[in-house]
């Protein structure tokens, strides 16, 4: 029994890692109808920047605080300069642009940091393991669960209880109407985009001690994040949260109960969810 509880906890930790990424992507997609394929690139950039910052300052916590600001600034610039002129165009043009940015980021990372597989150690204090369910469990993963839950709570409060949150939700529901009410929807877009890429950077820092840092981590993670966002429903925080947990647990238990299907479990889950609820678990109208 404790074996299954242990695995459930593993799935939860993986799910929270996914949530950090999915939250940003879902907001961007839900609000701006833009599939930001560079999201994985910002995630990877976050991990590499953390690597350099930790080497430079010696502190993981400084990196955790500073890196999201850096990637948010990067996202802000990207949206302002490159993406904005393309809103009048089709989806395809926007996707091509973000896809191109993703390739640029990948090569940039390879050029600046090399092609080696690198590693970011967990900060002292969190690099221990505790006895849980009869075996040693890394404290760092417990930290990831706590951080994910805290972020989820914070986002829920901001989105649900503040004026800013109301503005964003209104924009997701009906951007033309929101604009008609006198709100500068362009600025809201830019800020949400920057916030999304900031979250991606944060996810990069937090995941680096678990995942490792190497070129290619961007696309690997992007694919799983897209699945989570689709399963949870676009533009909803609740969807990102529960979608991440579902995928995290499905992946973990799929690996041990159905190892031959390990590679396709999460795609099967996605297909099933979409068949039953085409908008995702909590998605509203389908676009």
């Amino acid at each position, binding site marked *: 029994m404790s*074996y299954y509880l*242990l*695995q459930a906890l*593993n*799935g939860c*930790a*993986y799910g929270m890692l996914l949530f950090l990424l999915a939250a940003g992507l879902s907001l961007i997609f839900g609000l701006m109808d833009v599939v930001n394929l560079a999201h994985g690139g910002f995630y990877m950039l976050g991990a590499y920047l953390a690597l350099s910052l930790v080497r430079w300052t010696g502190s993981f916590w400084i990196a955790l605080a500073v890196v999201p600001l850096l990637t948010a600034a990067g996202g802000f610039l990207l949206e302002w300069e490159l993406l904005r002129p393309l809103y009048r165009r089709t989806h395809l043009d926007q996707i091509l642009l973000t896809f191109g940015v993703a*390739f640029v980021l990948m*090569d940039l990372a*390879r050029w600046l940091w*090399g*092609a*080696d*597989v*690198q*590693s970011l*150690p967990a900060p002292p204090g969190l690099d221990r*393991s505790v006895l849980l369910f009869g*075996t*040693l*469990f*890394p404290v*760092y*993963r417990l930290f990831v669960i706590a951080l994910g839950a805290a972020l989820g709570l914070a986002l829920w409060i901001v989105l649900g209880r503040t004026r800013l949150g109301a503005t964003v939700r209104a924009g997701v529901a009906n951007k033309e109407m929101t604009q008609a009410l006198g709100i500068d929807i362009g600025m809201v877009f830019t800020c949400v985009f920057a916030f999304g890429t900031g979250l991606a950077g944060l996810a990069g820092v937090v995941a680096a001690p*678990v*995942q*490792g840092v*190497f*070129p*290619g*981590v961007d696309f*690997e993670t992007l694919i799983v994040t897209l699945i989570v966002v689709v399963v949870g429903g676009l533009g909803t925080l609740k969807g990102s949260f529960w979608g991440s947990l579902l995928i995290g647990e499905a*992946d*973990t*238990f799929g*690996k*041990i109960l159905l*190892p031959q299907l*390990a*590679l396709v479990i999460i795609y099967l889950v996605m297909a099933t969810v979409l068949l039953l609820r085409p908008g995702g678990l909590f998605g509203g109208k389908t676009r």
Partner: protein
Amino acid sequence: MATTRRGKEGTRDGRVTRRQLIRMAAAGGAAAAGARLAGAFPVPAVLGAAPVKIGLLVSYSKVYGQLGEDITNGMTLYFDSVKWQAGGRRLTWIREDEEIDPQVGVRKARKLIEADRVDLLTGIVSTATAYAIRDMVHNSRTILIVSNAGGDQLTRARKSPFIFRVSFSSWQVSYPFGKWFYENVARAAVLTAANYAFGTESIGDFKQSFVPAGGKVLGEVYPPLNNTDYAPYIAQVEKLKPEGTYNFYSGSDAVRFIQQAAQYGLTKKTQITGAGFMVEQDVLPAEGPSALGIYSPLHWALTLQTPENLAFTRAYRERFKRDASVFAMQGFDAARVIVEALTRTNGDTSNKDRLIEAIAGVKFQSPRGPFEFDPATHNVIQTIYVRQVRQVGKTIANVVFENLGRVRDPG
């Protein structure tokens, strides 16, 4: 990753459209970049005869990008030492990126063989790519000197007189270790590997000597390739309570597996062993103290105390400011094989049979020990060492402490 695509459009009303202009500029840019890459290495003055064209096809992108660079560096180091000449001719190369995708590998190999008309092809990081180009290489009578891809069948069922391998076969690395494991580590083991050809083949090779020696396999676990979270699998291994495990992972998979195994306490509860690639120089620095104590078989180690290896590792470090790896050593030896063969044929690359005979006869003291080819399979015959990851002064390194003797792939 840039590849130029040739579209079929002509001009519209005789004018060049903007789209074409962009395409031409892109093609021009790509060609310039390609020419720069090809001519990036210093080449000595013309010696009269046409230069030997060597096609180098390795992976420069994604997770195995470092392997491609290491192989290239190893070759550069050797070619520099002979001033890029052999058999009275200048040596030049054209480098292409196989990208880990066999389809891309086939395309690039075809380009090197048919369009660039290389005299020799070398490299190949990925076994899948090696199998994919095998027929093309054989049918076009192109000599291929493999400096990595370790798939057993490449020098067995799918061997070819034109294909030589200077690196290893997965059998050579894992088979001798099975018996050693039974005698020195544990009588029963759990086996895990990344679920792809290299991984499953290695586990099979290990079992071939472990089981007949009396070993008992408690269980086998195969995480998918590029798996992020090993926690569920580590928990499965722990449940079986083995005294020892034999594992196969490489690249980022190896880093994640070792780190997570340490975090979950697996490294303390059981003796972890694995094919040398799991703790090689490309991943050991990232694994750090988590890897301490791990036993691994391989045909080389950074700390191997042969005079050739000491010279090689020192020169490599001085030139490239980083430690050599087994891949760099393989590239170094591939370059040496090419140079020695060309010396024997006096630079003649047109008579393929003569060149094949020359290559097959090459024997020398490599950094890894005595090097020779098996005339029946064209695979290298070499010594396999057992190493353990230990703290050596300020660094963590694979220390050789046992020699499993000369190993020849059965073919």
